[in-house]
């Protein structure tokens, strides 16, 4: 490993950046770091450069190791939004490859500063999530020393299993529920709507609230932010355990924009690396060709040359949609879309019938018996199939519904929105994880295959 980045790469990067700024890209500073391939792999596995230890990462690690060993998975870059952004490049990739990656990362950086989901998160959590995550990882190491592997692991088992179970409509930092609820019949505290419109002509003036109040139900309504709920309402959770839950939750909020904008974001970065390279007339011709080759390796349909693929490459899909938008409406309109949409709006509004046809997208059905057939090429079905894995952060909708006097917890799976019940075996195991930190009985209601109600309860310990 060379201690100094390749001077050629540095020179090209500077000039590419100048070009990017000239073309209107707008981003927080980016710290690039050239790292060995094995470290790159770990960043990808953990999702953060330094993150809490857990055995489940070990499994992902070994899978990634095997995939790389077989040569069908190569990681070119990882970019972490923030102020500054942190981007990692593999130190023994070629200069053309890394030149391409630098251009690609600038596209991501532009996206991360301007897209509303990313901006909202940064507003809530600040721009130093990497440093915070690393600090928390060290805290957890300290907890391992102090409380032992078994106890720390029990908390991480539960918290990481619930990683996607946050409520992204809520704030990252939110107040606890009111401890007392207003007496029945009373008009609730005026919210923004009421404040604005309470003086409608003819409306009665609201009487002063009465002094009487009763103990509030916890939670007052279904609570989908399970990490927050457990952190704050588990009967006997210790401070350090709570910190772990909140750490996982904050990281989960951080990952959400990346998750919810993957197609847009990768497409945007791919559009920009292609354009920046095209306009970078200072690049030697052979370097340009090598870089473009790397580009087409990344941004190509999984189904090339009359083949079929049972998955859609998000890089290729996003790239194609952005090209289509920019061709029709120009770059300014595209920037507007980039700021306001996430993948749901992006796919529903901008994956047109013509484009879907051009990309030869289809919906297929796979049956229990292993049979697979093309179902249709209906645009709505295509859009929804692409988006299906993204609903609710890719997880079933499960809410905490009732905290009983004795500390036991009831949860409810919203099987109607999800369309079917939970995988019972896994649900039982997650419930065991939760029960170990909740330290009281925990139960969860879902439905079985025939639509019958199933209540799963944690085993009595």
């Amino acid at each position, binding site marked *: 490993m060379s201690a100094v980045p390749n001077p050629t790469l540095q020179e090209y*990067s500077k000039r590419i950046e*100048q070009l990017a700024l000239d073309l209107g890209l707008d*981003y927080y500073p980016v710290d690039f770091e050239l790292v060995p391939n094995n470290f790159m792999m770990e960043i990808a596995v953990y999702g953060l450069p330094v993150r809490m230890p857990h055995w489940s990462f070990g499994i992902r690690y*070994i899978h990634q190791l095997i995939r790389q060993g077989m040569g069908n998975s190569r990681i070119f870059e990882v970019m972490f939004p923030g102020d500054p952004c942190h981007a990692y490049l593999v130190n023994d990739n070629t200069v053309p490859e890394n030149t391409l990656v630098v251009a690609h990362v600038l596209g991501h950086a532009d996206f991360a500063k301007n897209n509303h989901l990313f901006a909202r998160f940064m507003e809530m959590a600040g721009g130093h999530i990497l440093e915070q995550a690393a600090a928390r990882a060290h805290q957890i190491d300290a907890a391992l020393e102090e409380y032992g592997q078994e106890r720390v692991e029990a908390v991480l088992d539960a918290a990481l*299993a619930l990683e996607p179970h946050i409520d992204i409509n809520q704030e990252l930092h939110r107040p606890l529920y009111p401890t007392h609820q207003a007496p029945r019949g009373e008009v609730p505290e005026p919210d923004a709507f009421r404040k604005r419109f309470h003086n409608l002509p003819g409306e009665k003036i609201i009487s002063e609230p009465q002094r009487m109040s009763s103990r509030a139900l916890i939670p007052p309504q279904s609570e989908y932010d399970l990490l927050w709920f457990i952190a704050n309402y588990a009967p006997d959770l210790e401070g350090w355990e709570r910190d772990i839950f909140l750490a996982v939750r904050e990281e989960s909020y951080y990952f959400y924009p990346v998750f919810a904008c993957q197609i847009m974001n990768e497409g945007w970065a791919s559009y920009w690396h292609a354009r920046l390279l095209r306009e970078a007339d200072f690049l030697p011709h052979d370097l340009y060709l090598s870089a473009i080759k790397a580009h087409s390796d990344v941004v190509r349909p999984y189904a090339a040359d009359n083949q079929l693929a049972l998955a859609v*490459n998000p890089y290729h899909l996003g790239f194609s949609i952005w090209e289509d938008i920019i061709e029709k409406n120009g770059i300014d309109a595209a920037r507007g879309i980039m700021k306001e949409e996430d993948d749901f709006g992006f796919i529903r509004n901008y994956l047109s019938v013509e484009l879907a046809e051009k990309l030869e997208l289809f919906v297929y059905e*796979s049956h*229990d018996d292993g049979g697979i057939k093309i179902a249709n090429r209906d645009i709505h079905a295509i859009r929804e199939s692409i988006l299906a894995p993204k609903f609710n952060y890719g997880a*079933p909708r499960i809410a905490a519904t009732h905290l009983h006097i004795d500390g036991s917890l009831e949860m409810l799976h919203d099987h109607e929105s999800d369309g079917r019940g939970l995988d019972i075996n896994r649900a039982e195991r997650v419930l065991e994880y939760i029960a170990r930190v909740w330290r009281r009985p925990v139960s969860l209601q879902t439905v079985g295959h025939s639509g019958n109600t199933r209540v799963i309860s944690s085993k009595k310990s």
Partner: protein
Amino acid sequence: MVSRMTMSAEAPWYDLFSRGARDWLRHNEKVRESVQQNLPDLIAGSDLITGSQDRTVRVPVKMLEHARFRLSDSMESQSDAGQGQGQPGDVLRPAQHGHEEGQGDRGEGEVQLLLELKVDDIMDWLWEELKLPDLQPKRNTAVEDEEYVRQGWDKHGARARLDRRRTVKEAVKRRAIQENPLPFINEDLRFRQLVQRRKPATNAVVIFALDVSASMTEAERKLAKTFFFFALQGIRRRYAKVETRFIAHTTEAWEFTESEFFQVTGTGGTGASTAFNLALDLIHTQYDPAQYNSYLFYASDGENFTEDRTAATEGLTQLAELLNYVGYVETVPGSLRTTETEMKMICGQLERNGAAIGTSVLTRPDDIWKAIRKFFVQQAEQSEAA
């Protein structure tokens, strides 16, 4: 222009360790723990005895899964987006015959983990789990072994037993009090001394006898084999030197090597007395009960010719008197028999008369642990009572 980029290639700290590897090791540790908890299930299933030479066994295990909430697999079909040419209705992959395959295809490529476990570790876990007492050697072993142990030092001795450390120590002491000391003198030399000591015999012999008549099926042999393996390992824990002998019988009895022993198939009827007599013969000629702790384990499906009853009873009675312990396991894969077998009856009678004999019935692999436990606990109790 003020550059908004920095580029560095330092910070080699991450070369020092791999967090992924650390978490992977932790995963493996957890697998090991769960293997430990499910040990009886795992082990009864695999072929152990043959692998005993290298003192390790390989157990295929699944990787652990960190569970998350997931929707159940849809009963009908699942829709996803794909890309390429083709018409609605085109079959991209025909239905597979046999459902298992379709299931395995989903998710990430399955990685099989082959866990190598030391037989000694397994035995330690088992002993802990089954709470087994250690075997008691016979108290009345008449002859004791001679052994040499190191004891003390002398100023004379064979060069090979020169204790250099001790010698230097002596030299240092001497030099401390002399004015112009020589580095070493003969007086400094110290030699280790050996003395002869008698110690109780710790030799053991285990005789395995197996009914190989036509009625013994493969399943029955497998049960017997697994049981024998663990009984032997248990005995090996206690004794420095364990010899094993293998006897198979139908209406005749022969001695075999270990590898042949489990392959032998005989035809015809069952006369257990032949095996007992051969065992007695071995004991009398080669394993003096005064010198050896001896064990006999006999496995059979319980059938025995009624004409052989007297001879078998006689043989077993003699064996029970000479040996530390006789264990009889009846292999009945599947279901328990309602009627008492000939062999069980004979053993039961002897046991009631106070002979060092125990009986267990093996219907499925789980029973092996009960049987092992029974034998070791009973043997310990009996030798205490004796």
